[in-house]
């Protein structure tokens, strides 16, 4: 299949501070591109650049061959690090926001978003307010909200960073088949190397600021196996250690590597 998303020589600065420099990347429909890197390396900024929420200072980002900011915004749905669920809407109405914005009626939006609640293990929580949901459920509603937009490109910014380890592992295992079955192009930002390798088809490791590509790696095939089996497989752990070593090298020091 053709390339859906590509970046060439992408760089960005905030004032004098260069956060990203000379990044090349690409992803095809159905692929998950994992972005890992130390905090402050510009991963989140890169997502916003891809999504058309910002325009890069240098280089070009294309989606379906289109370069414009608006063209990218039109094709991407962004899931921010915080779930950003709106407290004045029910879970169901939060999930259907994209449809309401497209001018669909409340009833239509609810019916369509509601179809996914069962599959996402959220049945019975349609009318709950966000603050009545657990952290894991909130993230699932936020992901559902992103998916309901029917956009081709999904940009996930540390979707599980706020969760405890057990819930995170559960949601990773839940997300994998969801991502696999659709033809979305997914960019997944995470600081968790294991999560990146588990969920992605290819992983891009960034250096600390300014973020450059430290390594690009094919991820092992993980679909169809239980998560525990995958992440303890010698092939998987080998790549994990390799990536961690790379990230460690590219960070100047632990103390100096902070934001």
């Amino acid at each position: 299949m053709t390339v859906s998303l590509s970046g060439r020589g992408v760089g960005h600065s905030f004032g004098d501070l260069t956060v990203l420099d000379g990044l090349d990347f690409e992803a095809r429909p159905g692929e998950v591109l994992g972005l890992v890197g130390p905090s402050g390396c510009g991963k989140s900024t890169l997502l916003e650049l891809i999504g058309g929420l910002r325009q890069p200072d240098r280089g070009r980002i294309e989606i379906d061959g289109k370069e414009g900011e608006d063209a990218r915004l039109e094709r991407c749905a962004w899931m921010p690090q915080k779930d950003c669920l709106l407290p004045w809407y029910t879970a169901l109405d939060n999930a259907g926001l994209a449809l309401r914005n497209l001018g669909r009626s409340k009833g239509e939006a609810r019916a369509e978003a509601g179809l996914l609640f069962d599959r996402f293990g959220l049945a019975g929580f349609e009318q709950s307010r966000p603050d009545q949901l657990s952290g894991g459920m909130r993230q699932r509603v936020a992901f559902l909200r992103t998916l309901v937009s029917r956009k081709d490109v999904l940009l996930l910014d540390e979707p599980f960073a706020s969760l405890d380890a057990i819930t995170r592992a559960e949601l990773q295992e839940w997300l994998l088949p969801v991502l696999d079955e659709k033809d979305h192009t997914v960019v997944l930002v995470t600081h968790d190397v294991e999560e990146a390798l588990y969920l992605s088809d290819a992983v891009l490791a960034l250096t600390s600021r300014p973020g450059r590509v430290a390594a690009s790696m094919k991820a092992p095939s993980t679909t169809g196996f239980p998560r525990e089996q995958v992440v303890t497989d010698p092939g998987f752990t080998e790549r994990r250690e390799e990536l961690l070593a790379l990230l460690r090298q590219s960070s100047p020091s632990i103390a100096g590597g902070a934001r």
Partner: protein
Amino acid sequence: MKAVGNTARLWLPPLLLIILLLGLWQLAADTGFLAGALGLEDFLVPSPGQIGEVLWQDRSLIAENAEVTLVEILAGFGIALVVGVGVATALHFSELLRRASYPVVVASQTIPIIVIAPILVVWFGYGIGPKLAVIALICFFPITVNTLDGLRSVDPDSVKMLRTLYAGKSQIFRRVEAPAALPYLFSGAKIAVAVAVIGAVFGEWAGSERGLGHLMLQDNAQLMTARLFASVAVLSLIAILLFTLIGLAERALLRWR
């Protein structure tokens, strides 16, 4: 039973405090202690009991005037609400407008109302016009500033998220900015309604033929101190009532909080 207990726990402390204060006042007035301490005739320092008596005797006169004042407050507050929310929304959408007119909005609050009220009476006469102008002017600031702060309190990530979900400016306003601003608007409205009562009295003092402020001015001139205090009590009651009504509306509308 539990609901009754909760209600009692909510209302009992302020009620007890008010009763205690009134009791002390009654005691001080009855024994002539207050008048003695101030070196005044007894009738100039009425007790709560005397005030209550006058309130009952002159109830129709006080009610008539209270109605006039209440209408002024409601209309002036209403004007300020509509204009304040409108101005806040306009300032929110236009950076240029905001920078240009924010000083003017702030300046509107520094106008000494007592000084300007008589001029308004000269301009607009003895009717309801100058009162509405004074009340609206006084209410405008807390409503506008609070609403504007509320509109700008939105998490930028929520806005970005909505932008990637097809939302334009008006949808972002409807779905995040306006709901986020509502609690702020209610805070502003509560402050506004409390000062609106003062505004109404100033407006009436500057020139009027009716209203509680007008009655107070007359009673003051005729040394009818007990009825003066009765008017003050009714004014306070109006303020508390309106404040409570806004609080109830807030609770009904902001169920998510």
